[in-house]
């Protein structure tokens, strides 16, 4: 590997690759484009990328096969998945297949920039952890992990869920997700009674850079209660994301089904 570039965008639609090149280029990022997954995988052998933005629905090799090939190569480059088939199933599947994020098409420039910025910060955290792991001789598996309490569940690295005895669940954001944001400025929460869907955005976190970040909800159901204290004092989320910084109490409509797509935080502790 000779060179390092910021972003590789893999999409069989020219307009997407050129839009990503244009938007990210304007942000001062170096962008390469690949018209299919095979070309993208070949490029990743030659060049080190900090972040990959990859389409799901592509002819021959699709996005999930792309992720599987990266896993086989033990290539840990963070991948953001994106697709026109922007269903919640695809979002959840992408995150469970190893992608760090999912951006549904069509996206605005700001939505793309927000996701890319988060991805690049994630990459930096990963690089730091790798360096630390190299120094301490720990296994590369635990490069980035979410220190959520053992009885919690998480969706990707973004949101967590904790079951309550009453049948409701608490939902919040992970510290790792917070670390990938610029300093938190404000939080916009949904109202009690609103419906939330697993894989869809349920809260908007705005950073100091003015970028809005949607938080993928870990569960489907109706919001019973929103933590209004967070709206007044958003810093609680950064200070104590797993307890004081909870966002919603949700009455799940199909908890057992949703749990299948979540990762038990206990499995992170080996």
């Amino acid at each position: 590997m000779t060179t390092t570039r910021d972003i590789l965008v893999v999409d069989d639609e020219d307009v997407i690759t050129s839009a990503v090149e244009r938007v990210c280029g304007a942000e001062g990022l170096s962008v390469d484009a690949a018209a299919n997954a095979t070309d993208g995988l070949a490029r990743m052998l030659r060049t080190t990328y900090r972040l990959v933005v990859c389409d799901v629905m592509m002819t021959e090799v699709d996005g999930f096969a792309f992720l599987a090939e990266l896993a086989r190569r033990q290539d840990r480059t963070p991948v953001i998945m994106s697709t026109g088939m922007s269903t919640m199933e695809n979002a959840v599947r992408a995150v469970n297949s190893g992608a760090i994020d999912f951006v549904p098409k069509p996206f605005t420039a700001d939505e793309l920039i927000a996701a890319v910025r988060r991805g690049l910060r994630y990459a930096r955290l990963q690089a730091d952890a790798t360096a630390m792991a190299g120094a301490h001789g720990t296994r590369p598996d635990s490069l980035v992990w979410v220190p959520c309490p053992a009885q919690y569940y998480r969706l990707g690295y973004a949101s967590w869920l904790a079951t309550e005895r009453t049948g409701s669940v608490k939902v919040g954001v992970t510290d790792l997700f917070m670390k990938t944001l610029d300093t938190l400025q404000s939080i916009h929460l949904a109202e009690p009674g609103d419906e939330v869907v697993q894989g869809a955005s349920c809260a908007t976190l705005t950073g100091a850079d003015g970028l809005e970040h949607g938080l993928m909800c870990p569960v489907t159901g109706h919001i019973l209660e929103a933590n209004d204290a967070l709206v007044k004092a958003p810093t609680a989320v950064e200070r104590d994301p797993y307890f004081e910084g909870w966002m919603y109490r949700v009455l799940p409509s199909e908890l057992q089904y949703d749990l299948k797509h979540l990762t038990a935080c206990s499995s992170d502790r080996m």
Partner: protein
Amino acid sequence: MKPFRTLGSKLTVAVGAIALVTIAAFAAFNSRSDNRNLLAEVERHANQLSEAVKSSTEYDMLLNERERIHESIKRMGNQESIQRIRILNKAGQIIYSSDTAEIGTSVDKKAEACTLCHSADKPLERLEITDRTRVYRVHPDSARTLGIINPIYNSRTCSSAACHAHPASQKVLGVLDVTLPLAEVDKAIRQGEVEVVLLALGAFVTLILIIGLLVRRWVALPVRRLVEATRHVAGGDLNYVIPDERGDELGMLARSFNNMTQRLSEARLQLVQSDKLASLGRLAAGVAHEINNPLTGVLTYSSFLQKRTKDQPEVQEDLKVIVRETIRCREIVKSLLDFARQSVPKKGQAAINDIIARAAAVVENQLALNHVKLVQELGTEVPPVTVDANQMQQVFINLFVNASDAIGPDAGGGTITVTTSQLKLSPIGITQIKQAQCPKRHSLVNAEVRIDGKPSIRVRARAEGHEGFIYRDPMYGLARHQFGIAPEPGMDVQVTCPECSSSLNVHGSPCPDCGAATFQFEVPGKGFVEGCTNRACTWQRWAELERLGDRDFVEIRVRDTGSGIARDELPRIFEPFYSTKGQKGTGLGLAVIWGIIDNHNGAITVESEVGEGTTFIIRIPVEP
């Protein structure tokens, strides 16, 4: 239709024939009895006459006043109603007669009038009146004549008279023979006969007319209406309704016919719907993917431009519109995708009453604004069902909102009543075989050949050198199988798994209906389904399912007091993009509901009356 082929004309002819025979027999009997009575009357009259002649001449005879007797007999005999009066002595010689020419001549004792007494060797002395009369024709062409003979007996005054005394031993002295013409009587009889025939004919014609009219009204017309209806239905118009609602058997037939077409129409609707939704789902997914890519170009570039031209307010405004409208497009495509997404319900055990209560809580405010009252009549014994609670909640929210819209803001309020109950229905014809496998656990479900939109069950069949696939109907109880090979009963048919060729035959167990070879496949966890290899045979058996008997269903009815749905609109309301709300609705709501219920193996039907309201009926099986 040819005459006498129709049921009405057959009935009329049959009843007419029976009536004709009866009336004719009655008329004949009546006429004969009349004749007999008339003749008896004439006989009685003739007898009286002959007695009168006898007694009026008796005295002259005692005195032997022959001239006077001649005169009397002549006068009496010349009356119009009397043909002839004569007195014969024992030897058969005519002594007196109104016809003077024959006086002195003898009649043959063997002649018709005499044989009654003289046929035996010793003449009879007493005769009944009927034996003393005779009816005869002088010439074959002449009118009939009635003759009556009256024996003149010896008496003491006779035998003791001084004149010419008959000996006392002589019992019968002679015979008085009176003949009357029957021309008048015959005329009356003929006239009577004509009258009876005319009356019978009149009665017959009237009867035929009345019966024909009644048969036409009670049988022919309703039957014609039924035939007309079957033509409409055969022509594809399943909304045709037979208007007549009568109480008799044909009325019942008409009602059950209407019922049948309604069921058929619902079933067809569900089939069409199922197909349409499946293709719409594919279309939506394809469209979403195809449209979202170019939309991404538009949205990314326009929002990017918006970011970079913050110092140019006039451009900003325009770009804002572009971004806003593109985001609107994104939402539309998203709703299409949500619609297509119903394929995989996340099912779990749930109480339908709880789901309804939750849905009611969500729409409470909206209904209150419209002054619509939501009445929940939820059954207490309703068992939990295996459903996607979220999707079912969406179903009820949509139905409540629809009902509220149907009531409308101008009606000054209305009521939505939701009821839940449990009911049992036979599983035959409504249970879909969704999984099927061979002994080596290869799936036999074939999504390429669909029967009424549902994947068929494919097996390979080989008979006498020919080979082909049999596609079984996945709906158990409906035998709409497709045969790629047509084995005859009695042939040795090998049925195998198309993938691994392991045998599916059930040896030594011929079809109980036709005797052909049978085969079976396993429905994992639900026993075996057996089927017949004969194309013409519909036999099948799913012992496990039939052992379970009728299935439990939960029925939910959502009834509103809204404006109702017109009859011709009813079949279309579950179609995607069909909306009666104009700009207000997307036309996807009921299609989504239909898809959700179908995915739960349930059924949704609608009953509506314009001005009265609409009822949606949902049935969900308790066991998934």
